[in-house]
């Protein structure tokens, strides 16, 4: 770990101002479960840390609104994962929180920081000697011809096939979430889907955020679709592991027909991915094993396998299909 200076910001405006003044070597510190982890690996080497945990205006959340749910960027995952309204009205959001990480990590981690978590790719995290265009632009991508069992099937490029490993962002994608950010020139709102960048030729750029921008809050438009929703996560062990494939699904049924559906997939792509084609295959259709599978196939359409991850295409298809069936059971219970 390189040494760094440490300051605490008192307000969001202070934080942004301090970041703008500090220059490219500075980082915001929230829960630290990503940044501190990567600092210990020397993957992140900030010279200055701006601690934003005192920004009290950002640590609350409100799920009572009739127009939208509002989550402060510093709300802790475990607090939100215990919210009873969410459990009843948006179980997918709740599940995407409590199925992530471990209880201790959920007590530490912030919602905003969780959005910005970085890939688990072993070549990225492992440092020298692994070729990694994300960590060291121009050095190559060791995963493409290497151990890529867990790497991306969708959204990859010649430069990078690292998977976005988070859960919360997947569920948020299904619900058209928006992110408010503050920069030196003021506030702006970004659709969550537009927050993330595919690697392309610049895998080191992961988001649409400027380095001086701070996430303030996440807003989710209220929708009755939330009630019959689920986040279904398939992993290599029963808990405390990242997704091999996951799906956030929300359904509204008219008897046996699908009136409206949301599908987002995780664990299989370089960014959170809303599966609109898959949704289109289902609207106005009956929800059967066949149509659920077809939706899964549409969600994984265009998947480009590497040597060791082809099985995750089929796994992803089945995960989407299973998630639809779980959501349908929840629809029927209403």
């Amino acid at each position: 770990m390189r040494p760094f200076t440490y300051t605490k910001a008192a307000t969001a405006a202070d934080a942004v101002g301090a970041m703008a003044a500090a220059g490219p070597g500075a980082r915001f510190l929230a829960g630290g479960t990503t940044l501190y982890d990567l600092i210990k690996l020397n993957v992140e080497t900030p010279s200055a840390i701006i601690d934003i945990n005192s920004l009290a205006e950002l640590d609350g959340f409100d799920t009572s609104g009739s127009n939208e749910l509002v989550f402060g960027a510093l709300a802790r995952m475990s607090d939100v994962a215990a919210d009873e309204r969410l459990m009843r009205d948006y179980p997918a959001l709740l599940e995407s929180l409590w199925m992530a990480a471990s209880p201790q990590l959920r007590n530490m981690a912030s919602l905003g920081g969780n959005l910005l978590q970085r890939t688990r790719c072993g070549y990225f995290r492992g440092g020298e000697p692994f070729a990694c265009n994300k960590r060291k632009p121009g050095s190559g991508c060791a995963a493409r011809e290497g151990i890529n069992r867990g790497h991306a099937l969708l959204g990859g490029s010649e430069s990078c096939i690292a998977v976005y490993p988070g859960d919360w962002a997947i569920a948020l994608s299904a619900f058209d979430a928006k992110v408010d950010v503050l920069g030196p020139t003021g506030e702006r709102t970004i659709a969550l889907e537009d927050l993330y960048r595919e690697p392309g030729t610049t895998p080191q750029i992961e988001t649409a955020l400027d380095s001086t921008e701070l996430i303030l809050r996440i807003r989710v438009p209220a929708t009755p679709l939330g009630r019959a929703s689920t986040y279904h996560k398939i992993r290599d062990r029963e808990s405390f592991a990242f997704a091999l494939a996951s799906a956030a699904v929300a359904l509204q049924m008219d008897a046996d027909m699908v009136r409206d559906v949301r599908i987002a997939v995780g664990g299989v792509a370089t960014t959170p991915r809303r599966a609109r084609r898959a949704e289109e295959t289902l609207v106005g259709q009956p929800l059967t094993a066949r149509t659920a599978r077809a939706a899964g196939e549409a969600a994984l359409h265009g998947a480009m396998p590497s040597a060791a991850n082809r099985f995750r295409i089929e796994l992803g298809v089945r995960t989407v299909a299973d998630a639809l069936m779980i959501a349908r059971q929840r629809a029927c219970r209403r």
Partner: protein
Amino acid sequence: MTDPGDLVARALAILTEEAGTWRARQAAAPMLPAAGGTKPEPGTGGDPAHVVSVRLTVNGTSHTLSIDARCSLLDVLRERLALTGAKKGCDHGQCGACTVHLDGRSVLSCLTPAVHADGRQATTIEGLSPPAGDMHPMQQAFIDHDGLQCGYCTPGQIMAAVACVNEGHATSQAQIREYMSGNICRCGAYAGIVAAIQDAAPKMAGA
């Protein structure tokens, strides 16, 4: 070969020393002076901009420390305050052996920058029960159900277990298993750990 009498005397000395050293640490915590002590201050020869002062309360005792901003709470607890109950198993938040309570919530001290504990209350395994008094019901339950073997992950397991109950997640065997999955036990004492939590939960005040 050394005289057997000497060797057994040495054995006695070791036993007394082992027990005595730990008791000495418990009674005198903090063992190490906050500032101006023999422990080299992090600012020596380095850039003072990288040093921070933190005030944290650990097991009811307040400490003011000058620390390297890079320090983890785990390393401060272990190396500065001689509270070695919390263990380093991975240093990256992947095993749970470093679990302590911060303001009543379970956290991983290896992934908590020590600066985050400024102004806050930490509880470690050493603070769960008094050194010479009754044990916490969870500790007794771990003994009764053999929820341990080598003992290395045990402090972290117990702190996580207490939090599991306090945070309302010990309502079923399945839920306990899920909420204790952040604490890896390579000796495989999981069955005993779950049984211990089921036993202790109703005995814990306010559970």
